[in-house]
């Protein structure tokens, strides 16, 4: 069963076609990756799925229903949560309070939201820093907070935009472990990633974009061997450009 289906999704910005008729499916419970060079249209796709942008053409189907053009907060209530590439912690609030904002989508009382928030923080490994100022966190912790906030909304689909950017291998491994746990718990994950090591170890399915067009779609080992993918993105040695 596909949780998310993207059909001929297209987005134009006054003459420039950023995303051109892209289609793919995300099976329920899977962990998938969206990769491709910078400017390939990955974040634009995310923005259309998450409601931050409306598609120029095409459709996004979530749980069998069309969601194209709906507002971000509506989609979040339906179960789609996303993180931002440049993390956006809510300054002036503690780590716990940040997560509570997400939890308040489903919980109508502060006490219940606090419990859900603590659970989400625990899944991201941040429960010991719950009362710290969000603005005082280190970058890896901020990335984890970004994930915890999204997780606190109780999503069915989690969209992660370059959660590993700027992190050292040990730090990104921590996040990978957290993501595996979250996926095992039943949350479908679609992530945009440049770090191929992470993609290979995490993803069950990889979708490759280039110049706004999908050029490959399948299991990681197949995609990595695809000549078109190698030519446009990976280069000879199988590393991201």
């Amino acid at each position, binding site marked *: 069963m596909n949780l998310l289906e993207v059909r001929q999704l297209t987005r134009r910005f006054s003459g420039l076609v950023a995303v051109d008729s892209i289609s793919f499916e995300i099976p329920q419970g899977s962990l998938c990756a969206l990769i491709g060079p910078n400017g390939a249209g990955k974040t634009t796709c995310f923005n259309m799925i998450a409601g931050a942008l409306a598609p120029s053409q095409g459709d996004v189907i979530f749980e069998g229903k069309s969601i194209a053009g709906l507002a971000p907060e509506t989609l979040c209530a339906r179960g789609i949560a996303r993180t931002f590439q440049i993390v956006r912690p809510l300054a*002036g609030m503690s780590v716990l309070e940040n997560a509570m904002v997400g939890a308040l989508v489903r919980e109508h*009382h502060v006490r219940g939201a606090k419990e859900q928030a603590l659970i989400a923080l625990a899944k991201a490994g941040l429960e010991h820093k719950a009362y710290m100022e969000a603005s005082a966190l280190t970058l890896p912790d901020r990335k984890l907070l970004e994930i915890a906030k999204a997780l606190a909304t109780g999503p069915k689909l989690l969209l992660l935009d370059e959660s590993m950017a700027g992190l050292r291998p040990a730090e990104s491994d921590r996040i990978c472990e957290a993501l595996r746990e979250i996926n095992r718990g039943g949350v479908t994950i679609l992530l945009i990633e440049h770090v191929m090591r992470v993609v290979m170890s995490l993803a069950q399915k990889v979708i490759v974009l280039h110049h706004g067009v999908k050029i490959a779609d399948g299991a990681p080992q197949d995609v990595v061997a695809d000549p078109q993918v190698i030519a446009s993105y990976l280069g000879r040695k199988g590393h991201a450009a």
Partner: protein
Amino acid sequence: MKGALNKRGAILAGLLLALAAAAPFLVNEFYLTVLALIFLYALVGIAWNLMMGYAGQLSLGHALYFGLGAYIVAVLSEKFGISPWFGMIPAFFIAAICGAIIGALGFRFGVKGVYFALLTIAFAEFARILFEHWDYTGRTGGFFLTALNEKNRPLLSLRGGAMFFYYALLMTLAVTYFAVAWLVRGRLGYLWRAVREDEEAARALGVKAFEVKLIAVAISAGITGVAGGWFALMNGSLFPDSTFGMRLSIDLIIAPIIGGLGTLFGPVLGALIVVPLNEIAKDLGQALGVNGINLLIYGVLLLAVVLAAPSGVWPWIARKTGLDENSTRERDRT
């Protein structure tokens, strides 16, 4: 929450409240009148702060709601014989609806920052000019409530002497303060703060930003309307220029800005500083036969605050004396 009172602060607040309740037996009538005015300004300050500090919308036309509330309570009482007890209800709701309309227009059309502030000024000025030409409410000549006589029962007419207004406004202020505190500690408070910090990120977390901002704006306008109603009762006479004018709009917001935005106690402290200062300045001006001293003092005070303590006097004090929650957090951690 920034500036919220922790246990030590709460005890101090309790003492202050007890003191306030006993005040009429300790000070004379003149001071009671000044204190009632302080409470009135604190009330509007809390309301304005809700819109600016929590919804992040700068309103420079709050006199609109003040004037509407004032005229509604006055006209209903004078021309329809409706007791102000009931008159306060439409004052709240009509002001709230106006606020919601202006807010909705602003949000829908993406009017932000100083543009939104100018929008609010435009509406307030519009109302002022309309009322200046409206025969029913007395035009520029003013609208007057019938003078009180010995048969007046303050609890019925909501008008009385200095002591009556003192207690009435103290209670209105206390009720509003605790109601807003309850709101801010609850679900709405979190959503408000999230929207103020980063609206896009908040929406991605499921926060219905439009609704949440609108609620802040409506409550803010409604409370200001009620304050206007009390002003009408206290003053007995209303003039469009002094109830809808820009001078008033600016007067109303000086206290919460000096006291501290985004905090609950800030507006109260601000009013405690600004109102007596204004009285002293006016007296000084009269004694010296010079006009405009109060403006100069206001200006210098504001300048001092914006240079030395831009987030307001209360956050500054709270930091220094460890009365707020941030200090509790710091102590808990060490």
